[in-house]
């Protein structure tokens, strides 16, 4: 049959249908097959100011849709980290020399400069897989697995979550767990805690591989209060066991009166630390409790998303996080989303700026600034739009500023004149594309 005759079939059918239905010309059909896969990709740059950490990260999440709301999700993230991070040692008015974590070389930090360990270079590859499916009419389960690998760290984990709707789907209760098993193989071996940093080539205080496991449990409730208002609350529990110490962090051993770092007797002909530094030690257990509340309010296309989290742990760290996002439509196909985040935490009970020689050696000690008392603020703006081929694109730019204080009771002698907790500034730029 010729093409012309065939076309007259659909035309004749359309005319006959019009007569049958007795209506005008129906609106034209608009249908297309949904791709079974969708991809969410992003490029992220995180850069701290000065010579500190820079992270360039590429990630892709692929989702395969099946009928009946079942999904398979696969993810891949590759991070490239460079830059330096504070070693934990305090500033001095003389140059300080350190042995690198590898134990193979030494580096020197100029006077009055915060000692940074610049051997911080790594590539991390992380993989994840998840499966989601409804169970019966009102429940949904998710199961997943994750793994990541970097030079000195390997992670494997499993997770599962179940959610159930009640009350005509206005209430959702959920419960989930995640278990991860991580092993550390620090450069040069994990140092024996609270032992001194040794000369280049001396590995007598290095231990073998270390590991830790983390169990997370979460229970939550989501409640639709009205068409415009959804609230969520959850409680989470996290228990870490094993090697929780940072093998690259040290503390300065200082004079109990002047607060200056004690000099070390150098071995002739061998490079090694100029001062006395002790490797940090943290407890082998950490238990965290968090409560989280979130409100999402929808008003004429604008969406306010506000959340608060309180976390407390048995290391005596208490933290509060307030996160605010406000999504404002801009035209039909784009939006702006300002973002503000406030964070504050108290220091760990074993956090200390330095170890004075006048007192007995503590059981646990760390000068890691991340365990200190600090506040942080993040402010940013995201712009998202729908591309001409109906995909989604977004650009997010944020600034992060962290400032901390060391408790005055920990400051000894000359330390009072120095900036013991320097501010940290960072920028975050993220480009996302969803297709």
């Amino acid at each position, binding site marked *: 049959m010729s093409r012309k005759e065939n076309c007259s079939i659909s035309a004749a*059918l359309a005319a006959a249908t019009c007569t049958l239905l*007795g209506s005008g010309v129906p609106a034209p059909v608009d249908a297309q097959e949904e791709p079974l896969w969708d991809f969410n990709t992003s490029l992220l740059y995180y850069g701290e100011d000065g010579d500190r950490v820079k992270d360039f990260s590429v990630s892709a999440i692929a989702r395969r849709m099946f009928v009946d709301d079942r999904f398979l999700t696969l993810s891949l993230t590759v991070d490239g980290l460079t830059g330096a991070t504070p070693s934990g040692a305090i500033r001095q008015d003389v140059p300080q020399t350190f042995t690198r974590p590898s134990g193979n070389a030494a580096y020197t930090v100029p006077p009055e400069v915060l000692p940074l360990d610049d051997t911080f270079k790594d590539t991390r590859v992380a993989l994840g897989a998840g499966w989601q499916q409804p169970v019966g009419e009102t429940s949904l389960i998710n199961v997943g697995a994750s793994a990541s690998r970097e030079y000195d760290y390997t992670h494997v984990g499993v997770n599962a979550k179940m959610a159930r709707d009640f009350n005509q789907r206005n209430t959702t209760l959920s419960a989930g767990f995640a278990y991860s098993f991580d092993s550390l193989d620090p450069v040069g071996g994990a140092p024996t805690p609270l032992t001194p940093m040794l000369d280049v080539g001396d590995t007598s205080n290095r231990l073998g591989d270390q590991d830790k496991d983390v169990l997370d449990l979460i229970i939550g409730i989501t409640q639709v209060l009205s068409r415009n208002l959804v609230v969520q609350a959850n409680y989470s529990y996290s228990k870490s066991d094993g090697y929780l110490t940072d093998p690259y962090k040290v503390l300065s051993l200082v004079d109990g009166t002047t607060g200056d770092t004690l000099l070390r007797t150098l071995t002739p002909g061998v490079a090694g630390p100029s001062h006395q530094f002790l490797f940090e030690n943290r407890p082998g257990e950490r238990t965290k409790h968090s409560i989280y509340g979130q409100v999402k309010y929808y008003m004429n296309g604008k969406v306010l998303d506000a959340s608060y989290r309180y976390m407390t742990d048995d290391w005596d760290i208490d933290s509060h996080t307030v996160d605010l996002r406000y999504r404002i439509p801009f035209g039909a196909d784009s939006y702006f989303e300002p973002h503000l985040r406030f964070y504050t935490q108290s220091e760990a009970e074993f956090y200390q700026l330095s170890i004075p020689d006048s007192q007995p050696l503590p059981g646990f000690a760390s000068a890691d600034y991340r365990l200190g008392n600090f506040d942080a603020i993040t402010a940013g703006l995201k712009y998202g739009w729908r591309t001409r081929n109906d995909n989604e694109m977004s650009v997010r730019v944020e600034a992060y500023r962290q400032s901390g204080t060391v408790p005055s009771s920990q400051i000894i002698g000359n330390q009072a004149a120095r900036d013991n907790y320097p501010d940290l500034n960072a920028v975050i730029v993220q480009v996302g594309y969803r297709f």
Partner: protein
Amino acid sequence: MQRDIRLDLAVDAWQGRFQAMGSPCEVVSEARKRRDALEVTSLVAAEAWRIEDKFSRYLDGNIVDRINSAAGRPVEVDNETADLLDFAVTLYRLSEHRFDITSGVLRRVWRFDGSDKVPGSESVGEVLQWVGWHRVDWRRPVLAMPHGMEIDFGGIGKEYAVDRCAGLIKELDGDPCLVNFGGDLVATQAPGRRRSWKVAIEGDTAAAPDRIIDLKQGALATSGDARRFLLRDGIRYSHILDPTTGWPIRDAPRSITIAADSCVEAGMISTLAILKGAAAEHFLEAQDVAYWCRR
């Protein structure tokens, strides 16, 4: 027959469900209030049940029963029935006599239950004497056909009902709705709360995976024999019969889904394509319609 309506709140829309014309039927509505969703579902269910009562060949006393039991006497029909008969005549012509509302009697010898019970050619030949629209005397509004023949609107009824219901919803000027009668469906307008209605077409084999269609507005209809066939000596006999021979259409796709402005058009194009057998895709290519074919 059970005639009740169930109304549930799905994630972001109301889902009203009922049973009609041997199929599960649903109305997905973006109505804000339960009351409005119930109103639209009730309207649709009432219309579906009206059409079922009027045109089902399984019910006694309706117009189809009166025609089929007239035993050669002429029957005067109402306007709606006459419109459907006129439409069937057009399809009969367009399909080169393969779409024939008198072909239902072939089911006396063909029972598609997945078994290997293929009838003999004699019994097929015998029943063919009661098949063929050309034997019917149709002069609107009067129809007369030889004793023993039967008509059956089963090939049109469901699609017709979906379009009628969509028309009623549009008259109400209500919220966007999806009317779905056993896989033949119409979206009255694009949904307000998401990009499109997502319609899943289930795949029956690993080689023919599930499909998801984004439907903003318009109709989708699927024809096929995924579950109704006979299998004998390695030959698969489709439940779609060629009334000109009395035997199943050969080499037809297992399923054809068509997107068109109305459900009737979508359903009829998919049926006409199936009737083309091996040439189904060739036919569809020439129709300038969106289609998804599964072999």
